[in-house]
């Protein structure tokens, strides 16, 4: 009997989850510098939680946001203030902070009811700048431009000290986030989002309350970002406004685009791809190249990053997930492939 998710092959999911939790042990056995890799994977995990939420907003509801770094910043600072200065337990902050950030999502969602397309993207960008300035202005709580040190998290009496513990904490939440977004997409809510993306007028004519669902989309997306912010603050132990730059917002969009916009797995793949490429493959490649030509390394890294992005968008606009789908169809039909389909 075919189940609820007949279009997907679900039998691999438990193995994938198992693999995620076995990965640190494999890394520890395989390399000496496993702590560095874990740190990068943790970053990727935090970003995955955010980009999955961003995909709900930009990929599924069709509302472009260039201000998600601001949501991440609000989450990080709120949690830091709640835990360190108000003395709340970390578990409570995990619940309260996403709601607060979700409310900020509503704040930016209200103008979004009237503003569309590119205008919305740039309005959210302006929101990002304003939030950044606000954080610096409220230096009494946030430490201003000097940044803020954040304590380690402790969950259910178990204190989380290093990247090893963080990995399990973060990836548990990553899996929860992915499952949650999948459920949202398959529900009435998700179908309403997609209807709005495909045609606002048609959705409205079919009885979808545009204002309500757009605001819900902003709220949910803000909550995911807030969640990522909490984890970010307590795993990196130091937050400053420099980190939550407009470039980070743009990178988030790049991540979901590289993965394939409008698919949850695409967002996950894209985020992993971008973070790993930026932190691991480019430096490796660079070391070799730097011996041949003597160039400032930071610039070369940005150059290679931009080049790969550009080539990727030109030659693979459907993203990594689209590539995977194409490959799957190719093997299913293997000897009888119509040529036209794969050009």
């Amino acid at each position, binding site marked *: 009997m075919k189940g609820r998710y007949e279009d997907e092959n679900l039998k691999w999911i438990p193995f994938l989850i198992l693999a995620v939790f076995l990965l640190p042990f494999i890394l520890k056995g395989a390399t000496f510098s496993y702590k560095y890799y874990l740190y990068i994977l943790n970053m990727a995990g935090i970003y995955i939680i955010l980009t999955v939420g961003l995909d709900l907003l930009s990929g599924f509801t069709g509302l472009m946001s260039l201000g998600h770094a601001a949501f991440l910043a609000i989450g990080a600072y709120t949690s830091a203030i709640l835990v360190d200065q108000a003395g709340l337990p970390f578990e409570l902050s995990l619940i309260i902070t996403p709601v607060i950030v979700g409310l900020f999502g509503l704040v930016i969602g209200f*103008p979004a009811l009237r503003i569309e397309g590119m205008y919305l993207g740039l309005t959210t960008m302006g929101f990002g700048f304003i939030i950044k300035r606000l954080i610096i202005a409220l230096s009494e709580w946030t430490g201003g431009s000097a940044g803020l040190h954040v304590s380690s998290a402790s969950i259910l009496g178990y204190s989380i000290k290093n990247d090893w513990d963080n990995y399990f904490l973060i990836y548990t939440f990553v899996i929860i986030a992915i499952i949650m977004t999948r459920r949202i997409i398959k529900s009435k809510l998700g179908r309403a989002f997609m209807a709005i993306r495909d045609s606002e*007028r048609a959705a409205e004519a079919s009885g979808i309350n545009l204002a309500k669902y757009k605001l819900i989309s902003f709220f949910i997306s803000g909550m995911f970002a807030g969640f990522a912010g909490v984890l970010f603050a307590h795993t990196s132990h130091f937050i400053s406004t420099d980190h939550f730059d407009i470039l980070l917002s743009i990178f988030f969009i*790049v991540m979901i685009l590289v993965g394939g916009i409008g698919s949850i797995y695409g967002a996950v793949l894209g985020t992993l791809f971008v973070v790993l490429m930026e932190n691991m493959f480019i430096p490796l490649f660079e070391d070799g190249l730097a011996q041949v030509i003597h160039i400032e390394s930071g610039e070369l890294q940005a150059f290679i990053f931009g080049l790969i992005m550009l080539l990727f*968008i030109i030659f693979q606009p459907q993203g990594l997930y689209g590539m995977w789908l194409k490959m799957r169809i190719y093997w299913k039909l293997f000897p009888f492939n119509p040529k036209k389909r794969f050009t």
Partner: protein
Amino acid sequence: MSDLLTGLLQESVSGIALGCIYALIALGFTLIYKATEVVNFAQGEIMMVGAYINFFFVTQFSAMAGELTGWVFLAALFCSIIFAVLFGIILDYVINRPLKDEPVFSIIMATISLAIILRSLTAMIAGPISLIPVSPFGDSTIKTAGIVISVLDLAIIICAFILMALFFFFFNKTRWGIAMKATSEDSEAAQLMGIPVKQVYRMVWVFAAIVGVISGVLLAPRMALLDTSMSFLGLKAFPAAILGGFGSIPGAIIGGIILGIIETISMGTLSFHFEWIKEINDIIVWIVLIAVLMIRPDGLFGIAKVKRV
């Protein structure tokens, strides 16, 4: 009181000059948006490349001529514009052509990656040291009624208005301009009507590159140092373009001037008289922008598009 007034007037004038720079960058956005509905995030970078190229030509020619005369600057400007034409054609081939049938979103991302590439490439070639650009007009100023205007600012304002008028005329009166308008409306229908859509696109990118390079040439001497951070002005020109309504040429210049004046005044005189403005002067343009968009979602001069299901 008259002190405040003179101060405000003085700052308005330099605000208009700054606003005209914003307007020129916004014009670059507008041109591309008008024909292809793509928002070119690399416009600020094109401007920066233009400034660097012009600097290169100026140093080369002045070394050849042995002195720094007006002809050197003119020749450098001429060569920079030729470079801009080539640059525009290359950008069209690299960015626009391969992505013609893709969603607009992908092309925007392509321009963002282009921005990253251009910025890092410029930094690699030019090196980490900031350059000191030379103004063709020196430090000469004009003084009228207690207000001092530098000749450079005046040149910027005049240039912006001339370019704006040229493009306004071009889009409304010439065959090619109307072809561009038609292409932006519906590229397939335009193609069926016999409009060479590919050439139209190439032309638009060339125009945008020329405007970008000219704005870079004009802006560089206005800044004390020339380095890659100049490209971030491109981000600041977005509110100008949106305020005027993306795709409206008079809107771009008026939006640019409004924001230029707001920014200069809030940084200058007003911040001495009202303490709280100092806190928000770097984001004031965005606050104005969001306020305007709440009331008029298509900008001041934008035309709301009729949407079909």
